[in-house]
């Protein structure tokens, strides 16, 4: 159902793929597709979580700095306390920050855009204080299974892709087929009516930020493992890319609607645009300009498509 309603953007997506493949023969090669999906999976994993926040009627702009925070943390701790402890501690602290977001927005009922904007700044500061501004690296890169998350393969498919796919499916199922998901849609659609229906709105909002933070932690696992090191600002700007992917997929920022499938498609479109233009050999600034045009065209077409369907099925 939700998959079908994303069809406008899907058509656009496929059309774009065909156009790119005319200009670059490698574009549709299996290895290139795998490369793009793997690259998109970090943004994609985060976007899965942020989509839940958006469906719940809020925004999360802090994911970029949080990604920096989590990646620096897990990489730095890897050598100090061992991979298992590092991963556990990283997840715990990331969820803690998610809980702070969730507390301020869910229970204190502060404006999510501004809170997460403030958190974006504060978390970046925390990262820098933690690392003292130094890059962090994993010294023994060959001998650790930590490499699995970013570089490993299972059945010929890269682990980041698997993780992205798995998270997307699980979260989509949760959102579509569980009472929890239904409650989040209700809270995002009409918070007042949700409360009047006995739904714990504040808890619901709070929990969406935990999901968002969990996804960021997963992304940090992939990123840290892929790079085997981290800079302090590694996640800078991710929040906007994530949003671009979500909106491109067709999830509205108003809350109460949207789906993970749409987000997956949106994120992939974004990845293929960047990759396609790079393969065509344009300098980065042309890529930016084309991205601008494509974002607007895609969303516009999707909107026109929806409007048409609305007119034909409305009774």
């Amino acid at each position, binding site marked *: 159902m939700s998959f079908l309603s994303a069809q406008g953007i899907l058509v656009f997506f496929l059309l774009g793929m065909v156009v790119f493949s005319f200009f670059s023969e490698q574009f549709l090669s299996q290895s290139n597709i795998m490369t793009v999906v793997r690259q998109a999976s970090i943004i994609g994993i985060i976007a899965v979580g942020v989509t839940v926040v958006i469906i719940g009627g809020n925004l999360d702009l802090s994911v970029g700095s949080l990604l920096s925070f989590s990646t620096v943390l897990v990489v730095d701790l890897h050598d100090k306390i061992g991979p298992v402890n590092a991963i556990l501690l990283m997840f715990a602290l990331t969820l803690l920050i998610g809980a702070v977001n969730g507390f301020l927005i869910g229970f204190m009922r502060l404006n999510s855009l501004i809170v997460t904007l403030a958190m974006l700044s504060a978390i970046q500061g925390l990262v820098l204080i933690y690392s003292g501004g130094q890059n962090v690296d994993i010294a023994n890169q060959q001998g650790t299974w930590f490499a699995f998350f970013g570089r490993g393969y299972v059945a010929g498919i890269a682990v980041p892709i698997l993780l992205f796919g798995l998270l997307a499916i699980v979260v989509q199922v949760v959102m579509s087929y569980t009472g929890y998901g239904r409650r989040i849609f209700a809270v995002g659609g009409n918070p007042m009516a949700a*409360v009047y229906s006995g739904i714990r709105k504040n808890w619901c909002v709070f929990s969406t930020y935990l999901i968002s933070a969990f996804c960021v932690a997963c992304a940090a696992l992939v990123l840290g493992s892929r790079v085997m090191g981290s800079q302090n600002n590694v996640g800078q700007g991710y929040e906007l890319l994530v949003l671009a992917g979500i909106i491109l997929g067709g999830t509205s*920022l108003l809350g109460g609607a949207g789906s993970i499938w749409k987000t997956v498609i949106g994120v992939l479109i974004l990845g293929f645009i960047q990759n396609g233009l790079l393969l065509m050999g344009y300098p980065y600034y042309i890529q930016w300009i084309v*991205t601008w045009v494509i974002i607007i065209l895609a969303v516009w077409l999707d909107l026109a498509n929806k409007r048409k369907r609305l007119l034909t099925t409305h009774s």
Partner: protein
Amino acid sequence: MTSLKGFFRGKTAIQPIWIFVIAIFIFFSFMSEYFLSLSNITNILVQTSTIGLLALGMTYVMINGNIDLSVGATLGLAASLVVGIQPLGLTVAVLAALAAGIVIGAINGLIVWKTGVNAFIVTLGAMIGVRGLIFLYTQEQSFYATNFAFADFGASTIGPIPVLAIIFLLCTLVMHLVLTRTGHGRNTFAVGGNPEASIDAGIRLGRHMMINFIIVGFFAALAGVLLASQMGAATPNLGRDYELWTITAVVLGGTKLTGGYGSITGTLGGVLAIGILRNGMNMMQVPAFYVLVILGAILISVLIIDKKLNAPSTKEVRI
């Protein structure tokens, strides 16, 4: 942020953000011997004038129910143009830069209006694309102003007060009057507050939306020109992340993200708050890493205090 309704019509005393501005002003005056001096205060005004000018336009767009993420990039483009075109004459260069801002604003407005695509995504696209235009035009180069009159203008003063600060304050005054006194200003509130009703009342939504995007584009360009004159140069990366600080300042000033409510006086307060915090912490030599955390924490504290002050405790349902 809206406890003192009707302030912008001069009905009530003081907006909460101004209390905060005064509080931190007093705090830093005690904490740093360099803080409280005329030259430092004008310094703050000059430093905030860039974000301030962006915020003026942003206030309009946000009251109108939209948002503009492309202001930073537009600022960068205008700065590069005004310095890059200077060999053809300073006036031509300034006009071209301002025109560029207006055109980008108009494009944003037109797309939002005609397609109905959310302003957030339209201007997010523009933010990326316009930055591309800057690099296309400058080919990665920074430009240095050959015309010293331009840089001198940026550094000039009238009496003890820098020209840039005066321009900023004048613009603030004008935009305040336009917002509170003119048909366009009032209709901007109407469109943001209740678009449906506005259409019924015959208000042309698209026109006001366009005008407001043009206004924000113009002010972004103006900020770019003035910043370039302050630096006597322009770099292609100028204005990165400014959109986030601008939005923060505007929201701190009490403008609602959902539209229909806000004021220029509040925005001025929000801009000054951020400017004073930055300047004061520089003066106190707070390490850069901690400044980020402190700014974030203060932002959230202000939100919480505001919430507590305006607690709807008895009149509204607890949800």
